[in-house]
């Protein structure tokens, strides 16, 4: 059974130590330390180009690490790629199928490649197709499938080999909201009921945060933070509360009024958009929303909007980015940042 395969190896289902991949001078993955246990769902979150897919390819033995080690199901993917690939179900980003074959034929090919007992194949494929809701369209050509149907067929395809570890690259992309909910339910089921270790990558945090036991935030090849969603949120709130303020009036005056509020660490002008021509992002020690509003009104300025950012993952993620961007902006001379 899936759970026993991981259990027999004793250790974690996925473990990397100082895993590094370089392409020439570019470091795609930088000294990554990652652990995923059986029955756990780990979300690798980051923007496109952060190195998520490179990491996944190294875990599958499809790309060789420049340095560091990886263990998947207790095996080294660089040395025993076949054994690893036997145990790991992989849903690639933007999964493709042979358009001239039917969904069922595509799955049958995968079953053959995995050496699934031919006598049991038909039954197994039917069960998987039922499970992903493709039983009715299983015998039409994949050409005619929608993107969401392909994605679901991809899940079935990854399950054909009865994996103990599953790696899903952007599993919720291009699926309608209902499909996303079903996908997440399936992921939860696989982890809880069948003890599969799941590593999923995504840049759509809102969609996956509910299903992930832990998340890692991956930016420019580095895992900048990892832990439970709540833990990360707590970590972040130590760094202050972010409030977005929209105000009409002279920008310099607005900034002065905002900085006058006690506890405000930083005021940063946000790029203008059509909706709200003048906005600032204020970082304060604690919730200073009321004080900010009062200060602006006292200064004779009009408050057009006021919003405290929540602790959800999107916010965390955005803040990691912002820190990086402001760091580079400051290095380059700064633009409209005040202390």
């Amino acid at each position, binding site marked *: *059974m*899936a759970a026993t*395969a991981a259990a027999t190896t004793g250790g974690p289902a996925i473990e990397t130590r100082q895993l590094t991949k370089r392409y020439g001078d570019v470091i795609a993955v930088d000294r990554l330390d990652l652990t995923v246990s059986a029955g756990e769902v780990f979300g690798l979150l980051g923007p496109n180009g952060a190195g998520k*897919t*490179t990491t996944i*390819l190294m875990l*599958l033995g*499809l*790309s060789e690490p420049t340095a560091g080690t990886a263990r998947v199901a207790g*095996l080294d993917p660089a040395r*025993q*790629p*076949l*054994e690893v*690939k*036997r145990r*790991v179900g*992989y849903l*690639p980003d*933007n*999964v*493709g*199928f*042979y*358009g*001239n074959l039917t969904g069922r034929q595509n799955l049958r*090919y*995968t079953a*053959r*490649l*995995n*050496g*699934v*007992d031919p006598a*049991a194949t038909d*039954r*197994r494929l039917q*069960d*998987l197709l*039922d*499970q*992903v*809701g493709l039983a009715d369209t299983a015998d039409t050509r994949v050409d005619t499938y929608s993107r969401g149907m392909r994605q*679901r067929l*991809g*899940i079935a*395809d990854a*399950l054909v*080999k*009865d994996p103990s570890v599953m790696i899903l690259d952007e599993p919720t992309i291009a699926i309608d909201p209902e*499909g996303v909910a*079903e*996908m997440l*339910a*399936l992921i939860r*089921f696989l982890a809880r009921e*069948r003890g599969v270790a799941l590593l999923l990558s995504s840049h759509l945090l809102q969609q996956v945060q509910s299903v992930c036991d832990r998340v890692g935030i991956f930016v420019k090849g580095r895992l900048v933070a990892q832990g439970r969603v709540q833990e990360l949120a707590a970590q972040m709130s130590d760094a202050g509360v972010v409030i977005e303020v929209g105000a009409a009036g002279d920008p310099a005056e607005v900034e002065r009024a905002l900085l006058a509020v006690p506890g405000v660490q930083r005021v940063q002008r946000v790029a203008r958009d059509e909706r709200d021509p003048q906005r600032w992002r204020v970082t304060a020690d604690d919730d200073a929303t009321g004080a900010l509003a009062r200060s602006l009104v006292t200064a004779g300025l009009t408050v057009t909007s006021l919003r405290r950012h929540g602790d959800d993952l999107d916010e965390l993620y955005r803040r990691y980015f912002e820190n990086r961007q402001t760091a580079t902006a400051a290095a380059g001379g700064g633009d409209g940042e005040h202390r």
Partner: protein
Amino acid sequence: MASIAEPQGPTTATRGRAGEGLPAGWRVVARKELADHLLSLRFAVLLVLLGLAAVGAVYAAAGGIRDAAAQTSGIPALFLLLFTAAPERIPPFYVLIGFLAPLLGIAFGFDAINGERSQGTLPRLLAQPLHRDDVINGKFVAGLTVIALILGVFTLVVAGVGMLRLGIVPTPAEVARILVYLVVSIVYVGFWLALANLCSVALRRAATSALVAIAAWLVLTLFATLLVGLVADALAPVPADATPGELVRSVTLQQNLARLSPNALYQEATAVLLNPRARAVGFLLPVQVDQAVPSRLDLGQSLLLVWPQIVALVAVTVVLFAASYVLFLRQEIRA
């Protein structure tokens, strides 16, 4: 995903210890590719195209042989004339096949790898428990099998038409020659398959790959003789008052240059294999054939005559295949 049923338990028979119970990956790949090829439109199109050419050539040849029955009776290896005779300005069967058969290799190879890439199936395929070389080996085997099938069928059709129209049956020696001819033809088309496979690995777009392969085909089969003449003239110009020695040197140079094209190698090899009376590959001076007694070579002698050509054909095929192999193994998976 509508309902999450209790999934079927694993097939315990197939989940034995690591390394056990896995089929040879290339066999699975070859089986799938072969099925794809046989059901593809390109298979049907090529079958019709080559079929028309072959049947046309053979009817013409058979007709010519019958019309000239008086002279031809008693000619040894009459049956082989079906493949080589060209009475009505239609090129003989073996020349037509030599010209058109490369299309088979190109058609079944030009999108071998880049097709997987563009469909997005390559990462998924390589995430299955098979080696990367299984993919390219399996595809090559499948392509070669289809090619062997088509060439074999046409050779049989020619033989059948011959027996029906002429009422003659091939001798065992002739059958042996036809079989060797078939094998050499498969190797020759294998060269084009390897070339197309290389293009499919090196070039990301299937259309570009097909164009490059077809360009190579046109250059090596149609324009080669033209180019060879030009290059030979440039390398060693023949003066107007050239001595016979200079002329011979010039012609030999041209011949050797032409042999850079696998098409030339194939034509030389098949011309000798299908004609027991051919005694030399190149040209002969009148003094060399003067007083010669017309006689037949047996198959072993004919083979010996064109052995270099056959070895060269195999060698370039292997080199091209190895190149695509190495290139593919080094490529990054991501598109």
